[in-house]
């Protein structure tokens, strides 16, 4: 009884410590972003009033935005608003930042999720294939594919993809998330086109969304696949040189069993970590792909906000990115617990 209470207390303490470190991390992230944003040579007032405004207009807008106050006062005000659950209003869209992020994030979530699925479903088997045929043509082919996918700029892939699959062949949808014919017709329930079209039972719109999604998601997926297959190969090679693999082979187990039942089983935890990190990276927004495909996502929103000095929007985005990474870390920790027997 005493032992279990002590264990529970210890677990609660660990949880408290973790929560505290998360909050400190997020606070540090916000403070750093805020002060870097303020010393960057970008003037939000100029973004609003334009280059030809006179001095009185400029000054008036600066005062309205509170930019005449010391930095620490501005930051304090921001934290106070945040404590009340208010991310502020975007200077440049005039919308609450929360509403803006809620509008753009699903677009990136959909893109990133499909990209990571493609990257994982293709990258993991290819990595395993390369490792199990080390030094043979399969290995070289996978490494070449991985090198190509990793080193070719996604921007170029995007352009070429549009040229071939959209402009020439007409297989893929063009820019944007859906054709004009469907734009505005789907009730926005989740902001995820595939989900909303399914909920509405609008299968032509669903198909059309897939046509628009497959090219940008495929290109991002190729990029993720390159990374995941490389990492999978290296994890697998480390396992395949272990003695227990030799023992399994000596015992006469089929090669597929050795590969999947033993070696792969032991790299799942490491794979989870790198997939989670890759997913997190994609969720930050793939700016170049979003630009090429006019994909109204998180990456474009964050980049535009930064270029215009819209600090409320930038801070909101940074907070979201921070929470995503904290969340993914937590998720991969939980999955470790599930998959790693040593943690039981």
């Amino acid at each position, binding site marked *: 009884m005493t032992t279990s209470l002590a264990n529970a207390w210890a677990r609660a303490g660990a949880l408290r410590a973790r929560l505290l470190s998360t909050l400190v991390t997020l606070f540090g992230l916000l403070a750093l972003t805020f002060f870097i944003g303020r010393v960057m*040579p*970008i003037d939000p007032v*100029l*973004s*609003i*009033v*334009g*280059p*030809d*405004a*006179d*001095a*009185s*207009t*400029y000054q*008036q807008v600066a005062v309205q935005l509170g930019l005449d106050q010391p930095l620490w006062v501005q930051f304090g005000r921001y934290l106070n608003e945040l404590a009340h659950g208010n991310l502020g209003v975007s200077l*440049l*869209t*005039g*919308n609450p930042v929360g509403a803006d992020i809620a*509008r753009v994030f699903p677009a990136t979530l959909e893109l990133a999720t499909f990209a990571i699925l493609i990257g994982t*479903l293709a990258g993991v*088997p290819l990595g*395993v*294939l390369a490792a199990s*045929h080390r030094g043979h043509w399969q290995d070289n082919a996978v490494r070449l594919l991985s090198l190509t996918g990793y080193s070719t700029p996604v921007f170029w892939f995007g*352009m070429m993809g*549009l040229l071939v699959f*959209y402009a020439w062949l*007409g297989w893929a*949808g*063009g*820019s*944007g998330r859906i*054709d*004009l*014919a469907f*734009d*505005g017709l789907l009730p926005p329930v989740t902001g995820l086109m595939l989900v909303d079209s399914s909920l509405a039972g609008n*299968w*032509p719109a*669903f*198909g*059309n969304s*897939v*046509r628009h999604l*497959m090219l940008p998601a495929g290109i991002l997926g190729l990029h993720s696949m390159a990374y995941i297959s490389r990492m999978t190969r290296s994890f697998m090679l480390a396992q395949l040189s272990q003695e227990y693999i030799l023992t399994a082979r000596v015992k006469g187990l*089929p*090669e*597929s069993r050795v*590969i*999947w039942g033993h070696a792969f089983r032991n790299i799942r935890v490491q794979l989870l970590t790198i997939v989670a990190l890759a997913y997190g990276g994609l969720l930050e927004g793939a700016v170049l792909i979003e*630009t*090429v495909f*006019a994909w*109204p996502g998180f990456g*474009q929103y964050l980049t*535009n906000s930064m*270029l215009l*000095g819209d600090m409320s929007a930038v801070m909101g985005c940074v907070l979201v990115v921070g929470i995503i990474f904290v969340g993914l870390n937590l998720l991969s920790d939980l999955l470790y617990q599930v998959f790693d027997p040593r943690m039981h």
Partner: protein
Amino acid sequence: MSLARTLLTRGNGLLAALACLAALVLAAPAQAATPRDQLVIGMNMNNLLSLDPAGATGNDVLGVVANLYDYLVELDPHDLARVRPALAGHWVFADDRRSLTLTLREGVRFQSGRLLTADDAAWSLQRVLKLNLAMASPWKSYGFSAANAPRLIRALDARTLRIDFPEPTDPKMVLYTLATSVSAAILDRQAVLAHERNGDLGAAWLLTHAAGSGPFALTEWRAKDAMLMDRFNGYWRGPAKLRRVVMRHIPESLSLRFMITRGDVDLAAGMAGPDIEALKHDASVVVQPVLRGTSYYVALSMKNPRFADRRVRLALRSLIDYDGINKAIMPNYGVAHQRPVMIGLAAALPDPGYRLDVPRARKLLAEAGYPQGFRTTIRVLSDPPLINIATSLQATLALAGIDAEILSGTGNQVYGAMRDRKFDIVVGRGGGGVEPHPHANLRALVYNPDNSDAARLTNFQGWRTGFHSPAINRLIEEAVREPDEARQNAMYREVQRLYDSEVGAIQPIAQMQETVVLSRRVHGYVGHPSATTHLRDVHKD
């Protein structure tokens, strides 16, 4: 081999699912063409920030506001000097040229259904001055202010609007401003005030909403994504021919090119020059250039002692490859032009014929004490054609020993430094020219009544560059008050000659040309030189 087999076997379910999805996707209708009753415009919407006529800056918003709202008067896109009636059926200037009285049409209704009156017009113009945001600038240059606006801009009755000018000016200029400035859009006073917050006269709401009487009503605006405008059936001129106008944010020029060739957009605006050039050979589209009044220029800061020396400015004027830039870089972006007054006005002088002349530049630099040249910086936006002009300039400056480092950045960084007078050279675009009047250009590019740092006349590029010529200032002030048109034009020509001899700090290279690419299905689209392009008569096959 066994591994490959295993992969295939285990992947059977997945393959089946993918096959179903592929069938669904291939069965999904590919958009063959945009609907006949809708115009789809592809453009970069990064600069489309506010829709409030009091604070909206940039050219892009002009095309939006011109279709959501009405103006009191309009300019004929084919002949800018011709003012056409709009909300005001007719107007008259006072004999002493100190006031303008406009008579509004009867029966015009806002999209809310309310009748539009002269009170709405007066309130809309007063609001611009009370808020003192970006678009108050042209009105303040005439001497209007938040304090005097209620007294000088008045509704005499429901149909009569009177505008008294605080200072002597050319009434035509005011009329042109009423026809071209975003700030002159007439708002539905009641609808706007219904959304007022903390005495902001509806400014927060109008960032993302509209309350006008124009041919189209704003249905949806997703910033940096899409804008939907639906036809307003109660429009006083009669309903627009199109049911809907959709603007889509397509920031990448090549993507836009693919989309217009496949028929997924009807009109592509703001494309890169090479993409436009490629489309000139495409039979399914029409390329339509429109000359605007702004200039591409090279600006020098006379706060820098080197550039304060007339000989150095003259040397730099001889180190610009006007011909090369205009032939190689400017097609589809601009046409060659070397004067501060825009092409096409009666007062415009022919180009002086400046050209690249390195020996002359070297000689002048030596006389000024820089036989080996010097080091300097060029600030420029990282977008074409500006960055290309800067690169050309960097190369030609080097021919005379001037080592120029290019500092490229956002508009914020380039023009911010210019406003603070902390720059050496800027390659930029600007200079008024919205109103078809020499004063509009000269006020923006040349005029500088007070060159002190404390004056902070940041809206005058003359002040930003530190160019100060009392003789030119005096002539500009006299010319805008001169009632005789022939004498006025002679004065403006004299200003240009003086600017040439005094070697102004801003050297125009080309006059801006905006080129749009239209599907052949689109008819009735006439790009407006003042960017107030009306879509009410546009229709499609």
